[in-house]
């Protein structure tokens, strides 16, 4: 009576991200070279904001000194509270809303932007305590925030962003440019 739907275990299957999420990228956010962000969009329209693997924070063995979700005197992303199924009360983020500022031990500071419109559901407080999470697992446990786009805009999230292929093209072009002008 058993239904034979055996899966192939010889090779690793698709990961959680590959199974459930679409990856969108924004390269050189706000004109800052290589400051690439990645948005993971779940099939249920929810989005997870992460750093792209190419982000300067993740390069050259940098370490993080401080992560700050307080983006101005009046506004801290840590104060974000959502209630109920409809997530009432979450801060609304526009495309270039700063979400947090990350200071590395070499005193370089980077601002992480939302890259999309939507309601902030939660920020990752774990990376405040364990900053190495962000460095070791930038696209999973080291995520920055969870953002819920408006229902009618959820299909358009990718329109202002790069697909994975386009982003890889950008990255390889960047690498080619660096090689072309060795300083």
């Amino acid at each position, binding site marked *: *009576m*058993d*239904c034979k*739907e055996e*899966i192939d*275990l010889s090779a*690793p*299957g698709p*990961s*959680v991200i590959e199974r*459930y999420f679409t990856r969108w990228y924004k390269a050189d956010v706000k004109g800052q070279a290589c400051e690439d962000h990645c948005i993971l969009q*779940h099939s*249920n*329209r*929810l989005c*997870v904001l992460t750093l792209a693997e190419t982000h300067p924070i993740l390069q050259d063995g940098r370490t993080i000194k401080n992560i700050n979700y307080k983006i101005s005197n009046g506004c801290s992303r840590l104060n974000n509270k*959502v*209630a*109920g*199924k409809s*997530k009432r009360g979450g801060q609304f983020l526009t495309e270039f809303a700063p979400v947090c500022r990350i200071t590395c031990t070499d005193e370089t500071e980077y601002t992480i932007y939302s890259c999309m419109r939507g309601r902030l*559901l*939660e920020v*990752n407080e*774990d990376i405040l305590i364990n900053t190495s*999470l962000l460095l070791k*697992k930038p696209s*999973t*446990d080291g*995520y920055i925030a*969870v953002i*819920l786009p408006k229902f009618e805009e959820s299909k358009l999230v990718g329109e202002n962003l790069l697909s994975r292929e386009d982003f890889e093209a950008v990255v390889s072009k960047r690498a080619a440019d660096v090689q072309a002008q060795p300083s």
Partner: protein
Amino acid sequence: MLPLKEKDKPVVQKLLSSGCCARCVLRFCCVLVQSLYRQPGEDESEEGTRTATEQSDDPPKKRMKLDDGLKGSEASAGSGDAEAPPAPALSHCVVCLGVLQEYCSRDHARKVAEAVKTEDYHFETILLSVSLPAQLCVREHSCWLHVKKEMREKVMTRVKDDIVPLKEAFKWSVQGLIATELGESFWRESRCIEESIIFPTLSSDCLLLVPSWFRCISIGPQCSDVFLLVHNVEIVSYCPPHGFRHYPTPPGRPTSICTSQAIQCLHTSIYVAGRYNKYSRSLSQTPWIIDGRRMMESSVEELIAEPLASSFRSKGFNFSSSGREDVDVRTLGKGRPFAMEMLNPHRYRFTKMEMKKIQETINTSSDKIAVRDLQIVTRECMGHMKEGEEEKTKSYTALVWTQKPIEKDDIIFLDDIKELTLDQKTPLRVLHRRALAVRQRVIHSMNASFRDPHHFYLRLKTQAGTYIKEFVHGDFGRTKPNLCQLLKMDTDILELDVEVGNCGTSYFQKGNPGKSTGSMTRIVQLGLDFSGDFPRLDVENVIFFFSFQKTRLKQYT
């Protein structure tokens, strides 16, 4: 003793001269003897009425009524076409517009019985219901006022509430006839026949009556017929005599009579329960439709319902179950309890063997699911089934992938973990439809069995409501602790099975398969519509209703 007495005589005369039919006369005289209504009508058999008359204690009066009736039958004899809507005739009652005449005839009873037979229902008991045009209550009131006025309230010591309701009179008149017509095939099986009738549409002149209120109370024309009906009854019952002066008393002669709009048959729902196993990882429990597009070819619900619907010859179904599982999760063990409400089944009685056969049909039709303990249950059992959802402990088996190679000894420590409390943030997977919260869930025990260096099976006993997939892959660290943390490496879940029912309730095991215990009631609905051009209420004549009814109407707006 015949209920009609000497003192009723003037009333009877009054009514007859106004154009009431014999049954309406009985109604207005508040006669509660059902057998009198069952006497064949004027246009039925002359013989029958004569017998009835001879039995009466007061022949002159009855004779008079009968004579009146006979005249009517002669008048309508020329247009005696049973199929076409009965032609208007002088004899048609001004109060019931033929409801207690044409529609109480053997011909009509035969028509109703035909409709029931055509549908080929199996049933034990029958209930007849009828909806009447709202216009009739206006006419009844008018006639009542007429009688009251003419008699100067001397004779009429009764109040209007004592008048036998038209629906009751209709039931008494026609139920026996329909039962007889159904007799050959159904009567022996029937325990009792109850009747009441519904005429779902309102007469056109009643609709005329209403628009003028709409302007005043601004409800808009979207009001349902039921609403209109309620209003007419309400307004008439609170209308003082002077308020009714614009409507003719007695009501005018109709130029046509009510027409039957529809005869509907309806069997009460039958509930079928059982347990199901799901062996497929690409089958949803219920049809999965996104933006009008089907995501999966079939569903558990449809696989079970189809053979059931064809056996019960039902007109639809409602599926419910004790919990549900993800599309890619198999349901093993004894199976998940479910119940299926079969709507308007034409057949409802199945023996134990027949139910077994249906079960086999379901099981052979697909290897994706299996059904057991299939049986007919009462409605109350549905409640017990839902209790199973609260079941404290759930058993799962997960196939886990590990990023790094493992050995048997690496996972043994999992077996020793007991009562592990998890803090689960609402998984991203369901966060779009569930509130964000951290929920504490307990894993009572785990049992790991090594498969190969990158895979092992993990059996879990957990508190209900634990998200297993998220426990295994960690959900971006949002479930803590998770299996990644316990094993200090990335882990992922490849397959999941849920075992249902091994420690569950046996809520309908003791049922009586094939025999339902609920009372099986069949309802025959008749629809009569009135669309004649007989005297109507003019719009302006009706405004008075509103002017003094303003306050009462407020409660509806």
